[in-house]
């Protein structure tokens, strides 16, 4: 009996078209993920091939998670179908046992699911053969790579999933419970992620994820491209633990289900209580009771259908109440709210950054956390609303009532959008609640209301209307769900193709970013066109839905005609006209007034630029030596006039007769016009392109060697209208920030080329630039900021609105008011790199001094959280750097807050613009083990740039970033350590180590050693600070700082030639004892990885009261090539081994009781300590100074004995 039943069930699954629909969807997703860029499920890959075991496994994990929501119905319906049809009672009366019946059903569903998910490897394999697939992104096919993820992730995952859904379906007998379970699992994933984000919780984080996505990330987080291309997921450690756990959970659930499920009628765990008592006692009025004895029912005399309004109102109220009484609806909404709440709760943390729970942040979290659930709620419940009566078989009663069809449709639509409104509102309240609970009770209603009700909420109408149309057209509700999923998916595909045009992306919300400084800024301009367009489209969709709405038991063509009344036509026409008008306004703004470029168009523009202008790259040009700016800002009108004189000298030794000037050109909504560009002598235009802002002229009389040329430019800036991607915010009502790029430069700009290897190959461009060799004198003679400048002198006159302060590098010589504008004149008295900016805002200024040097923080009046901390950091940094690295070259230090449209801090000479989003609202919490006091650190880092590289600029060669960023990062870490102590530094280094390892895992080209880093942030920031800090420990601070100072002193404020890491290494090597030269090689000149581990610790209390601690530790060392292929090398390195006291809250390690540097060789060794107090923790490399992929096992707790 069992085999027949099993075979019958299995055949049944594959006889249903919907099963094949699932197969088709999964196959298509996998197929296109491999063969095109349309489905970007997998992270940017670079050197990692799309059909590498890494990419295929990741694809599989993600599709398993997404796919479960779609395919869950397969399992739950397997068990539910019989209950619904009552077949289970028939089956129950046959010879098959209860367990046999359930087992056959489960096994068939499980096997069917496995086969459905086999579509992923098959699709991926087929995708690898697609003729159009980019061959360079693929590697030779190894079948095992395709099958293995299905085996190790798939089988346990599908088993867990099937078991869970089967158990839920069998126990609740509700299809909805199945859906809810699926969503719950997805939310659980994100909640689990939020809960376990601390570094040391890897084990827990791994276990809470039923889809093994996190597991996958943990296993592969430090894999280099070479490993990603060749390694399959090892069935051990994280993976086996996770898979076995969840398969086990599935098995337990299944057992529970098998035990509890009864097949008798209505045996679903007794949820449904019958209404009894009242009925039996109710009196039955006997037939023939005189009419007077019965309650009188008023006989109507006039018969009229309810008005459109009355019908609408009743339908709306009834269905709103009905949904609010529905348990699954409340369950999904509650899960959604939990998700919003969790999102808001953790919104103030991202990596090492902790932020005050600002209102805009909470509003962001509320909108972000609600999004998925808005989609889920509207997809399912529009389906419910449309199919409700047909489902409960009340459609004939409703349809034969006189209520107007429009009332039904609009009533249901309104019920849906009202419920979404309630959901969004509750989310907002959750955000406010979190804000208050987290101790920042200053609720700023504006960003909440604006973001939730004005920006986000109206954008859902179009999606809801679309769902109504889809559900009114499809023959079954489930098909409507699938169609809706495909519609969402098509939006993703559209934007992946770079076609994320607001008028194409169904219900896309207008672009909006809140800034406390600049409020909603220019964004509200886009609200009306975008919302107006989509609301008009919604009207059209609803009009069509009305035409398609089934009334009665047959779907009729005639109905369309009958409903195509004047009113309907008016609605459709109104919607179409509205869509045309608002869409037209948007199109005019985004595509006529401004440009919309799809990704491909953008790429082609860069290609055209390179084709046309690269040939001028080698042009010899004079060097800029002085810059004088006149900038008139009109922030209130989003306009500006920039003018200036660039003084340049021909230092080439040969006459120069051709000039190449690159001026800023229009971008986004910013229209930039070049009023004039004069050269102080007669010129002839040779060639140019206003679109790129390029002008190449021939000087009528060539510029003789050492002769001076003055180039004067006048440009006008104006922000016009709106752009698809939002407005340009460089000029803002409050918080203008014109960076160096907003002023002219000389010569071809290599930075504007396409940089990705794949794209360059696609467009047949020469290979991407790599860094230039450190010995290439042409590039050593060219400084890193601007190839046609040396050190310059600088002054700027800036005018702005009367209530704003304008700032530029230099010292304020004069401030005055003219024509109702406020003027400032800044003059710089020391040579600076060709790197400056102009800012203007309404700031409060907090002042202090260090050794007579003014320190000024220009900040938004409300953002006083960290101003003192920034001042303290400034003082400490100036103190340390001027002591160890040479005098501070300026007489003033200014930190300027700018709106959070960008999230960086950047050092200009004596001026540090610092984003509102990072330091000013950061919340420092020293009891948090992740917190690294970012405002203090970043301030110190930016100040260090005044030394590195502004005092000795580096040449445009490999390693240049080490001389600026690594030095600054390191210097800031030393400043932070002075404040917070060594245990704090360990936290920082551990975070840096993690970032470095992840960074190299994602390297798309080739990893360089630190001294040859080239534009690789993970190397010159993270590895840089780690390496220099480790060297400080080995060489001593004085030696290391001495070498840095010697490097600076060698050519301070001089150039060309400019500095290279070869210069620094020469200084460093000179002071490094031979015994430590290995460390220079390991940290700076090669890619070296260590693997040290404390295997065991024993601690015994001796008779003298002291503790004898014995540590056993293993160590080895590897060298990696640029793609990450490793070879082991002999180790004989000085490493810390130590015993520590209890760690304070917020740190991982306490003060050392005893620590010593030991020569550690490859292999296992014993280390003995005798310490006077009770040890808490001990081990090898406790401060994480070695680059080690498992830093968590360096120390262990000392066992309590």
């Amino acid at each position, binding site marked *: 009996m069992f085999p027949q039943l099993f075979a019958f069930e299995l055949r049944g699954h594959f006889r249903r078209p919907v099963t094949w629909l699932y197969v088709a969807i999964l196959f298509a997703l996998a197929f296109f993920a491999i063969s095109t860029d349309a489905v970007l499920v997998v992270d940017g890959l670079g050197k990692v091939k799309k059909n590498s075991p890494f990419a295929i496994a990741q694809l599989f994990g993600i599709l398993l998670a997404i796919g479960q929501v779609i395919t869950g119905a397969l399992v739950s319906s397997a068990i539910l179908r019989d209950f619904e049809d009552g077949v289970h009672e028939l089956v129950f009366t046959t010879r098959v046992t209860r367990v046999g019946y359930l087992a056959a059903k489960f096994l068939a569903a499980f096997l069917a699911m496995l086969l459905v998910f086999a579509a992923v490897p098959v699709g991926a394999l087929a995708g690898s053969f697609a003729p159009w697939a980019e061959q360079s992104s693929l590697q030779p096919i190894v079948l095992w790579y395709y099958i293995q993820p299905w085996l190790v992730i798939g089988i346990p995952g599908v088993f867990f999933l099937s078991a869970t859904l089967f158990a839920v379906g069998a126990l609740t007998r509700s299809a909805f419970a199945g859906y809810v379970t699926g969503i719950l699992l997805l939310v659980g994933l994100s909640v689990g992620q939020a809960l376990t984000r601390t570094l040391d919780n890897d084990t827990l984080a791994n276990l809470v994820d039923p889809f093994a996505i996190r597991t996958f990330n943990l296993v592969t987080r430090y894999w280099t491209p070479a490993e990603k291309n060749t390694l399959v997921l090892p069935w051990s450690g994280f993976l086996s633990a996770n898979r076995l756990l969840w398969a086990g959970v599935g098995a337990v659930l299944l057992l529970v289900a098998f035990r509890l499920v009864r097949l008798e009628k209505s045996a679903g765990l007794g949820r449904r209580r019958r209404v009894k008592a009242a009925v039996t006692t109710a009196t039955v009025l*006997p037939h023939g009771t005189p009419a007077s004895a019965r309650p009188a029912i008023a006989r109507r005399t006039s018969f009229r*259908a309810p008005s459109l309004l009355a019908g609408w109102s009743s339908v709306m109220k009834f269905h709103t109440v009905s949904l609010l009484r529905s348990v699954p609806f409340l369950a999904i909404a509650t899960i959604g709210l939990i998700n919003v709440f969790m999102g808001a709760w953790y919104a103030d943390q991202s990596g090492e950054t902790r932020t005050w729970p600002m209102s805009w942040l909470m509003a962001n979290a509320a909108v972000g956390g609600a999004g998925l659930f808005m989609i889920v709620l509207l997809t399912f419940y529009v389906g419910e609303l449309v199919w409700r009566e047909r489902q409960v078989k*009340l459609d004939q009663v409703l349809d034969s009532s006189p209520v107007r069809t429009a009332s039904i449709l609009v009533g249901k639509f309104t019920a849906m959008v009202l419920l979404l409104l309630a959901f969004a509102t509750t989310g907002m309240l959750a955000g406010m609640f979190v804000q208050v609970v987290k101790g920042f009770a200053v609720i700023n209603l504006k960003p909440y209301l604006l973001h939730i009700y004005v920006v986000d909420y109206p954008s859902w109408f179009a999606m809801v209307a679309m769902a109504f149309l889809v559900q009114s057209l499809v023959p079954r509700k489930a098909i409507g769900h699938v169609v809706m999923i495909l519609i969402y998916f098509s939006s993703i595909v559209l934007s992946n193709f770079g076609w994320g045009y607001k008028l194409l992306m169904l219900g896309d919300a207008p672009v909006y970013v809140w800034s406390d400084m600049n409020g909603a800024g220019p964004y509200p301009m886009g609200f009306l066109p975008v919302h107006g367009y989509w609301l008009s489209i919604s009207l059209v969709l609803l009009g069509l839905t009305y035409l398609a709405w089934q009334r009665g038991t047959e779907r009729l063509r005639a109905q369309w005609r009958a409903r195509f009344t004047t009113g309907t036509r008016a609605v459709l026409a109104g919607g179409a006209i509205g869509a045309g008008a608002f869409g037209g306004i948007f199109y005019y703004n985004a595509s006529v007034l401004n440009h919309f470029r799809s990704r491909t168009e953008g790429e082609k523009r860069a290609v055209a630029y390179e084709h046309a202008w690269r040939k001028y790259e080698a042009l010899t040009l004079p060097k800029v030596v002085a810059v004088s700016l006149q900038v008139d800002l009109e922030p209130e009108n989003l306009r500006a006039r920039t003018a200036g004189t660039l003084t340049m000298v021909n230092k080439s030794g040969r006459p120069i007769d051709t000039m190449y000037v690159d001026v800023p050109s229009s971008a986004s909504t910013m229209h930039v016009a070049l009023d004039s560009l004069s050269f102080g002598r007669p010129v002839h235009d040779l060639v140019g392109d206003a679109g790129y802002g390029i002008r190449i002229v021939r000087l009528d009389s060539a510029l003789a060697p050492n002769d001076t040329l003055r180039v004067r430019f006048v440009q006008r800036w104006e922000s016009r209208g709106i752009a698809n991607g939002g407005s340009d915010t460089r000029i803002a009502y409050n918080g203008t920030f014109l960076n160096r790029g907003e002023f002219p430069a000389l010569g071809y700009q290599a930075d504007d080329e396409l940089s990705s290897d794949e794209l360059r190959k696609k467009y047949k461009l020469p290979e991407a630039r790599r860094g230039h060799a450190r010995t290439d004198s042409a590039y050593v003679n060219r400084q890193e900021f601007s190839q046609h400048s040396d050190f310059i002198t600088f002054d700027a006159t800036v005018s702005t609105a009367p209530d704003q302060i304008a700032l530029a590098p230099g010292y304020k010589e004069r401030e005055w008011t003219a024509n109702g504008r406020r003027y400032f004149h800044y003059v710089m008295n020391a040579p600076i790199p060709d790197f400056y900016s102009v800012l203007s805002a309404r700031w409060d200024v907090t002042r202090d001094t260090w050794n007579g040097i003014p320190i000024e923080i220009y900040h938004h009046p409300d953002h006083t959280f960290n101003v003192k901390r920034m001042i303290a950091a400034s003082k400490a940094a100036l103190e340390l750097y001027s002591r160890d690295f040479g005098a501070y070259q300026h007489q003033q230090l200014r930190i300027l807050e700018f709106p959070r449209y960008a999230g960086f801090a950047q050092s200009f000479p004596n001026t540090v613009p610092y984003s509102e989003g990072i330091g000013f609202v950061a919340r420092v919490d020293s009891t948090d083990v992740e917190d690294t006091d970012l405002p203090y650190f970043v301030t110190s880092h930016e100040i260090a740039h005044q030394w590195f590289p502004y005092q000795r600029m580096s040449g445009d060669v490999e390693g240049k970033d080490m001389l600026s960023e690594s030095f600054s990062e390191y210097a800031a870490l030393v400043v932070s350590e002075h404040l917070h102590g060594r245990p704090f530094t360990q936290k920082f280094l551990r975070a840096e180590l993690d970032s470095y390892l992840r960074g190299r895992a994602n390297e798309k080209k080739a990893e360089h050693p630190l001294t040859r880093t080239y534009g690789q942030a993970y190397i010159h920031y993270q590895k840089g600070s780690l390496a220099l800090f480790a060297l400080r420990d080995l060489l001593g601070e004085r030696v290391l700082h001495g070498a840095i100072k010697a490097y600076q002193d060698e050519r301070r404020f001089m150039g060309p030639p400019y500095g290279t890491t070869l210069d620094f290494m020469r200084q460093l090597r000179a002071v490094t004892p031979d015994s430590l030269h290995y460390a220079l090689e390991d940290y700076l000149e090669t890619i070296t990885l260590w693997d040290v581990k404390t295997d065991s610790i024993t601690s015994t209390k001796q008779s003298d009261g002291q503790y004898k601690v014995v540590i056993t530790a293993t160590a080895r060392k590897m060298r990696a090539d640029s793609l990450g292929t490793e070879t082991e090398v002999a180790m004989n390195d000085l490493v810390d081994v130590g015993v520590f006291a209890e760690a304070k809250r917020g740190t991982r390690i306490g003060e050392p009781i005893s620590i010593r540097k030991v020569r550690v060789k490859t292999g296992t060794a014993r280390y003995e300590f005798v310490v006077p107090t009770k040890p808490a923790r001990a081990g090898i490399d406790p401060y994480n100074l070695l680059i080690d992929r498992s830093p968590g096992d360096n120390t262990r707790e000392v066992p309590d004995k």
Partner: protein
Amino acid sequence: MTLLIDHLSKTYANGVRALSDITLSIPPGMFGLLGPNGAGKSTLMRTIATLQPADSGSIRFRDIDVQRNPEQLREVLGYLPQEFGLYPNMPAEAILDHFATLKGVTAHGERKDLVSALLQQVNLYDVRKKSVGGYSGGMKQRLGIAIALAGSPKLLIVDEPTAGLDPTERNRFLNLLADIGDDVVVILSTHIVEDVRELCSQMAIINKGEVVLQGVPARILDEVRGRIWRRTVPRTQADDYRARYQVISARLSAGASVLHVFSEEDPGDGFEQVAPDLEDVYFHRLAAASGGRVPAEA
């Protein structure tokens, strides 16, 4: 005041001819529509209830051309379909209130009175706040008739309302129907002959989409009066009798078959004459319509 159905025909897309030239005139009062499963009763009901169109023919009620102006008919219509359900998570009161509004009882006070009167009439007042998901079949059926009655329809159509109800519930339900005013056209479709006999002043039998017979139940009995004969035989012999006589119905009773035979004269052979009831007419007509053969189980 009379519902006039004139030459109504309907063929479904799958080729099933559900209504074939049906002409009926239905006066106010209770009208019974009898017919076996698949006779076209439900199609006829749905067509009258504006839920689907006919291919040809017309339906007229009080100057309303139903096919052309379904909206007008819906204003005076109450309809209880054969198989129907209710919003399971909602209380009876809210459902009834909702439908009363949809039927045009939009004045709040009037509707409130109406809802509570109806709930009392159908004996659900005490459980009006309970979700109908927990109601028994009979309770649901009574709430259904309350919905149909809301708005005092002039045309009430109830399709197989007593199927699946126990005798008590069935009684309760028929009582409700009996109380409806005389000026209302009530069409009661059923395949239970007793329902018609007890309640209807007029009736029709349809089979295979055609009207087999129409008239007053009492008079219809005259058609077979004196020609219905009964005999109880062992079950095993039933087939022999079928072959020999025009058996119009066979019912099991205490393990034996009770046969009803239509015969102009006494068939002898132990048959005794019985007073005919509607069932005999019904089966006789059905048998006649299908060429004298009676389905074995009938």
